[in-house]
């Protein structure tokens, strides 16, 4: 589904942030991405959600080589990847409902066709009562759940989450982990970047470990 072969990445003329990274995310798999701060986790995720291009190596997503893919075809691939950003990146001027419905709106769907689904999803992540609240009035945990709901609302093939439990207490962290595992059971490939070793051990899933730009796979 997503395959990296000897991928290297640098910003401008700087040092290589990622070196010879190779791995494969199979459909329906669950992985963790760990490593100390500055190890290159966010850069690796950026490559996976098509925010940057590698300096070298081969990345294939859904069978397409992204180096040769025309720019106009990238939005279609992005729609198959749901992303939970580390800093959430919810749009402050929209309500929680509008934020979560955004991926469906940009696909050109009519609101009547998704209104019920979005409400149901919001209820499922515990935001049923906060639908019309705007992000600045949400707590950290609520923003986190809204960001997750936005990432999964369009039923992507892959879900990438950058530190999704970074802003919540351990109990909420566990609840969110259950949410990801549930999504994974429903067929979505999930990759969770985290510092939280307890979370990794609780899930018992394979771990991609990044250290100084090099990747090793455990489990």
């Amino acid at each position, binding site marked *: 589904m997503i395959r990296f072969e000897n991928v290297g990445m640098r910003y401008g003329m700087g040092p290589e942030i990622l070196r010879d990274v190779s791995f494969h995310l199979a459909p329906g798999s669950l992985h963790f991405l760990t490593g100390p701060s500055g190890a290159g986790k966010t850069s690796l995720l950026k490559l996976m959600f098509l925010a940057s291009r590698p300096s070298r190596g081969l990345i294939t997503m859904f069978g397409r080589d992204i180096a040769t893919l025309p720019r106009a075809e990238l939005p279609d691939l992005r729609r198959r990847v749901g992303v939970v950003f580390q800093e959430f990146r919810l749009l402050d001027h929209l309500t929680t409902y509008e934020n979560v419905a955004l991926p469906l709106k940009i696909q*050109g769907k009519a609101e009547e066709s998704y209104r019920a689904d979005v409400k149901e999803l919001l209820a499922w992540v515990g935001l049923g009562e906060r639908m019309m609240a705007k992000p600045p009035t949400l707590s950290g945990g609520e923003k986190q759940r809204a960001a997750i709901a936005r990432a999964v609302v369009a039923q992507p093939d892959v879900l990438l989450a950058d530190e999704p439990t970074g802003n919540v207490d351990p109990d909420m962290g566990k609840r969110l982990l259950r949410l990801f595992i549930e999504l994974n059971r429903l067929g979505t490939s999930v990759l969770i970047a985290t510092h939280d070793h307890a979370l990794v051990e609780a899930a018992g899933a394979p771990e991609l470990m990044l250290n100084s730009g090099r990747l090793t796979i455990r489990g």
Partner: protein
Amino acid sequence: MAEPRAKIRPAAREKDVPLHEPRSFGGRLKAIMVETRSVMPAADGAGLSLILVIAAMCFLASLSLGAALTVGRTSADWARDLSGALTVEVKPSDAMPQDAQVEAVMKLLTETQGVLGADALSKADTEALLEPWLGKGNVTEDLPLPRLVDVRINPNAPPDVEALAQRLAEVAPGAILDTHRQWQTELVRAARSAQWLAYAVLAVVAATTIAIVTFATRSGLSANREVVEVLHMIGARDKFIASEVQRHFLHLGLRGGIIGLALSVATFIGLAWYGKSANSFLVPVSSLRIEFYPALAAVPIVAALVAMITARITVLRTLHRLL
């Protein structure tokens, strides 16, 4: 009986949860003036100042356009009025008495093709004309005064003016035909200069508006960069983002333009009213005729289109820099 109702209520309430924020009266008013229902944020500080800038530029553009149209029309009117009239000045001559001169002139004029009518000013009329300078009763009998004949000609089929002047001099020595041409040429030239000046001001205002709108659109976009990036990241196509952004700026431009137009129309009406009461304008501003208003109405539309096109070009350029 109360039991089932209590059960129904929560479900009913959940169904009725409004998905957009409820609005107060002030909120609705703000929505009409500055907000657009799109994924772009409502006009914030930057949006409001863009509206104000566009309003000011449209106000100036409407004023200069209105002035150019009015002056153009007025000078055309002058040219038409004057070219429909001639004056024959009959100077006293030793060759024949003045009344005979006037009679000969009148006879010739009535026989000339293209002359619609002629009125000779009587001696009393001529003296009345001089009264402001010489005072009443101070004109002595032997003061040689020229007599004037006002001639109306058909502007569509005018007589041969040069031939007419020659014949007048023949039949009545001392008669001079004044075509007003010099006065007319100078007046029209002055009016045309004023008109071109107004068009030049309009061009400067238009260029400045485009520059300011471009600048304001760019700064508005950089304020909304986060929104554009997020839309891009979740798979929005460039066209979708551009159309959302351009609609936002179209609305801002239209609102600013309408405010500017309203102010300029109010100014024209105020000037017309003042001009009527003070009667002090050489160029009658009240002659901003009804047929000029559609031209003025085009000003906010053009401003809004400029804002929209600038936003579209800017956002597409910004997006092309992203992967």
